[in-house]
């Protein structure tokens, strides 16, 4: 997964899971979506969609993938 950005080596790289990405991108703290001419229809539906998506991602990560969800070592990988 593409990290959000890098500090050109100043900070250690962190791998992000699909779950974390979905959490950032499909959240309720959204700017503008409700106002878009066309958008996912309404905030409540987005939220519902989010829950579905998160469940799907969790299942994805629990099954065949290596699932780099936090095993909880240190603060950042490599820190």
């Amino acid at each position, binding site marked *: 997964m593409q990290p959000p*950005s890098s500090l050109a080596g100043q900070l250690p790289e962190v791998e992000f899971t699909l779950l974390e*990405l979905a959490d950032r991108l499909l959240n309720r703290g959204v700017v503008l*979506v409700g106002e878009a001419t066309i958008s996912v229809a309404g905030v409540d539906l987005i939220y519902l969609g989010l*829950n579905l998506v998160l469940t799907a991602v969790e299942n994805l990560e629990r099954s065949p993938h290596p699932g780099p969800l936090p095993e909880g070592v240190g603060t950042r990988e490599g820190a």
Partner: protein
Amino acid sequence: MEGRAIGELLYVYAVVPASARLAPEPTGIGAAPVRLIQEGLIAAAVSPVPAAEFDDEPLNRLMRDMDWLAPRATAHQTVNAALFERVDALLPLSFGAVYRGAGGVRRMLRERRAELLGRLDAVRGRSEWVATLQRDAERAGPAAEADDEELARLNAEIGTAQPGRAYLLRRRLEEARRAALTRLDRAATEALAQGLADVVERTHPEPIVQTTPDAPLARSSLLVHRAREGALVERGADFARRWEARGYALRLTGPWPPYRFGGEPLERGDATAI
């Protein structure tokens, strides 16, 4: 730009100051080039997307398909990550903001000009991080028990009690263990909040989605001045060193573009709660 087909669907990734420059231009969803639509002091980063997937009805249906969503969500983040490194202020949009034609985007930028400028100011020079606190019950349980007086007393009593009384004491012991673990959880959460308080500008508690036993204890979005990112990581490492033996671990991800704080009500913010 205006000469493009009327009704062309434009996917909006982010709002940036009009002074932003995209060179080289990032590649967006479906490998389409991302361009800026400027309106006064602000601009939207957009790329064309196919109506067959991004019109209202198909988008709502396809959003539930992980195989469809994952590469497009990744492209959304890739564009925002690239923009984030090039501009001092960025409002990343949530996934799925689609406008019909450049005119619709311009109208939105015009109508919400004051609000968007205020939001850009609120996140200028800052990044977003996500702190997740987790606890390993196998290690935290004994740690909670180690310095608990009531548990020590109960254990000693059980050692010498008659079988009937020992049974009752063991039940009380279970309860006391749970309470001690809850106290240790609270102590860890407070220690983390205190450790981060003076490097973090704003905190937003996030819902815990998992319901499994290994669900995190707490999860928060943090807004941090970019100059303090190193300090944040150090504070996180300090916490980890002090709490690791007791079974507590912190995962810190970032720097994210301010997905959460870009959309927050402008006055809110609490620098202490995790």
